[in-house]
């Protein structure tokens, strides 16, 4: 065990100290912050103050057109021709001409602009005029605005889940997002860090250090040390991303003075990710009670933010995420390691990568196209049970609610699955790392499984 620990340390430290790791870790949150802030920033910047000149021949509107923060009205008198001349000499946005109309027949209102008036301006003016005409019509029919506001109905559908635990608010969008975000993270984690395992093995093979190492440790120890070490690198990067993203978003928002209060959706995602990172980081120091307390506290904070979000089975989602995150990584990680051992250089990996890539990509595509639309269908069911697709597909399903037996079956099979792939990989690995200059095919690989070493 001591030796595995040494290997884990080396794998971890050499990677974490790499420039590429540091740059990636710093750059990604910055990009993320930029993407989150940019749209808000752009909208604010486009909102220049506009001034519209008004020539009201009907006298209906008078000073009823209210000045707003970025939309001002300047009233003119005289004929249309005069108004046009005045308007031409200013750099105001538009000239609004209201001919002699009645509130029953508000036809012929015209906007004159120097260039095409933007749809936004046009709509704002229409709204302002409509509202005022409506007001006047109400007055004419003996109603006032206040009365009307009381009458007006505003219907929003609340979706409620009826289940044994009682009623729960539910929101399909947030539910889907929770699962999809988790699934996407797992998908990329498996690929990014699985390939790192493969590269690490190839590096040891091509630099020929592997023979020195395995005269000190068992090949299995070397393989597992590498897989666990790289997992730790991934989790570290992940945790740093979350922390730095928060810092970056907050800093950028503050710097630009944007009211970047995240939508419930964003807060949900960020919070979820944060909680995951937190529980991972604290795994070794925290007692389970403390961890649970933290999660509860976290859940409470979220509850304030959005009701439907808090009603998702958060603890369950976090738990599942962690499980499928690590389970999926271990399942595929050892296979990536075996590929590295079977080849001499990265260009030869292609033929062996296919069988690993395909189930991952398929589960990723199916998650969007099928599972999300029908989380309880047959496709979703089977793909969330089979270990090679379950880490991604099950994560999409979990927020919608999955029967306990399905979840347990899926988890159990994933454990069996990664024990199997690790066994398989270690058989290939122990032969492959000492095999040089030989083109390997599947037939050869299958022979390795039964070599006595």
């Amino acid at each position, binding site marked *: 065990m001591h030796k595995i620990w040494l290997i884990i340390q080396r794998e971890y430290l050499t990677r974490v100290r790499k420039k590429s790791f540091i740059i990636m870790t710093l750059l990604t949150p910055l990009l993320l912050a930029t993407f989150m802030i940019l749209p808000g920033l752009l909208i604010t910047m486009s909102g220049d103050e506009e001034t519209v000149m008004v020539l009201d021949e009907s006298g209906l509107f008078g000073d009823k057109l209210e000045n707003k923060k970025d939309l001002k009205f300047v009233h003119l008198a005289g004929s249309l021709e005069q108004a046009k001349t005045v308007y031409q000499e200013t750099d105001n946005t538009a000239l609004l001409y209201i001919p002699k109309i009645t509130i029953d027949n508000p036809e012929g209102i015209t906007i004159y602009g120097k260039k095409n008036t933007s749809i936004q301006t046009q709509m704002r003016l229409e709204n302002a005029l409509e509202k005022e005409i409506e007001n006047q019509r109400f007055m004419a029919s003996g109603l006032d605005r206040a009365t009307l506001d009381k009458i007006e109905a505003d219907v929003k559908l609340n979706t409620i889940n009826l289940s044994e635990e009682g009623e729960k608010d539910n929101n399909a969008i947030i539910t889907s997002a929770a699962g999809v975000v988790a699934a996407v993270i797992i998908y990329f984690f498996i690929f990014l860090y699985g390939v790192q395992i493969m590269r690490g093995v190839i590096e040891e093979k091509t630099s020929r250090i592997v023979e020195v190492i395995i005269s000190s440790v068992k090949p299995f120890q070397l393989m597992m040390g590498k897989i666990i070490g790289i997992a730790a690198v991934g989790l570290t990067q992940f945790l740093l991303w979350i922390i730095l993203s928060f810092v970056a978003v907050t800093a950028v928002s503050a710097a630009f003075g944007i009211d970047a209060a995240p939508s419930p959706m964003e807060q949900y995602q960020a919070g979820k990710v944060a909680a995951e990172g937190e529980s991972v980081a604290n795994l070794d120091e925290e007692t389970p009670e403390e961890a649970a307390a933290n999660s509860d506290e976290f859940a409470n904070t979220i509850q304030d933010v959005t009701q439907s979000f808090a009603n998702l089975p958060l603890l369950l989602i976090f738990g599942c995420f962690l499980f499928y995150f690590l389970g999926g990584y271990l399942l595929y990680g050892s296979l990536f390691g075996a590929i590295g051992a079977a080849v001499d250089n990265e260009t030869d990996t292609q033929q062996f990568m296919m069988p690993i890539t395909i189930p991952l990509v398929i589960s990723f595509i199916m998650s969007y196209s099928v599972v999300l639309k029908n989380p309880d269908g047959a496709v979703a069911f089977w793909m969330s049970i089979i270990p090679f697709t379950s880490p991604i597909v099950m994560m999409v399903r979990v927020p919608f609610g999955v029967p306990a037996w399905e979840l347990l079956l899926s988890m159990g099979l994933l454990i069996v699955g990664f024990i199997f792939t690790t066994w398989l990989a270690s058989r290939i690995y122990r032969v492959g790392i000492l095999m040089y200059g030989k083109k390997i095919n599947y037939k050869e690989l299958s022979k390795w499984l039964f*070599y006595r070493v």
Partner: protein
Amino acid sequence: MSILKIDGVTKRYSNHTALDNVSFAIPAGCIFGLLGPNGAGKTSLIRIITQITGADEGEIYFRGERLKPDHIKDMGYLPEERGLYKKMKVGEQLLYLAQLKGLSKADATARIKTWVDRFEIREWLGKHIEDLSKGMQQKVQFIATVLHEPTLIILDEPFSGFDPINANLIKDEILRLRDNGATIIFSTHRMESVEELCDNIALINRSQKVLDGPVREIKDAYKTDTFQVIGNGHLLVTSPDFKVLEQHENNGVFRANIKLENGVKPNDLLRYLVERVEIHSFVELVPSINDIFIRKVTETHHA
């Protein structure tokens, strides 16, 4: 007492036999040459000794005990294919490899210090392996092999890739380690390169042991009672006790290879020659290990 006893070891791969019932013993405290052409099975045997692979049949005893994982820390192995982590610093790499062999961090650090001072490479410690020349890397790798003070040091083709100066440095270190009680196994196909270093050898050819024992005894067994004589004068050998195998004469200087027959002694030849010519040099022609190997292999083929 033998530090390593190889007893009937057989190793088969899917399409060939790498070792076929190989047995011999390696005495403690000697330099042992494991010799044979490429592909004879030397590396397979070494990998079994270092427990990288296991034998299909037969046993290996290390200091009288059956080989077990715990023995690994008493062995140092320098593989033929040298390699280190290219992106790691020399100091970190040595520390890591020593710790994998079971040294504590403090012990390893202290020993690394001793070794880098001995090789005068202290300033390399902070350098990455990839920034060192090939010869420098080999030195680092040699240190890594012996850092944990193994009692059995296995060096596969130890001098390939070393320039003559470094090769001598390594030779001296090997002799010093031997004098401090370590046993060293040299594995090489270039038999002449280790002949003068080895106390004992085993010859392996086509997965079988051909010959083993102390170098002196083997040479004695294979010597042909042939002497090379160089001197002045015209040499004409007529006695039936001496057979001239080869003779050259140039400007009154002759060189002859003479074989003793009928059980006569070297001194008889000397007396015979002294009466006839002026002798400058009289040397016994001892077969090289390479000659013995070739003889032995052709014998076994004909047999």
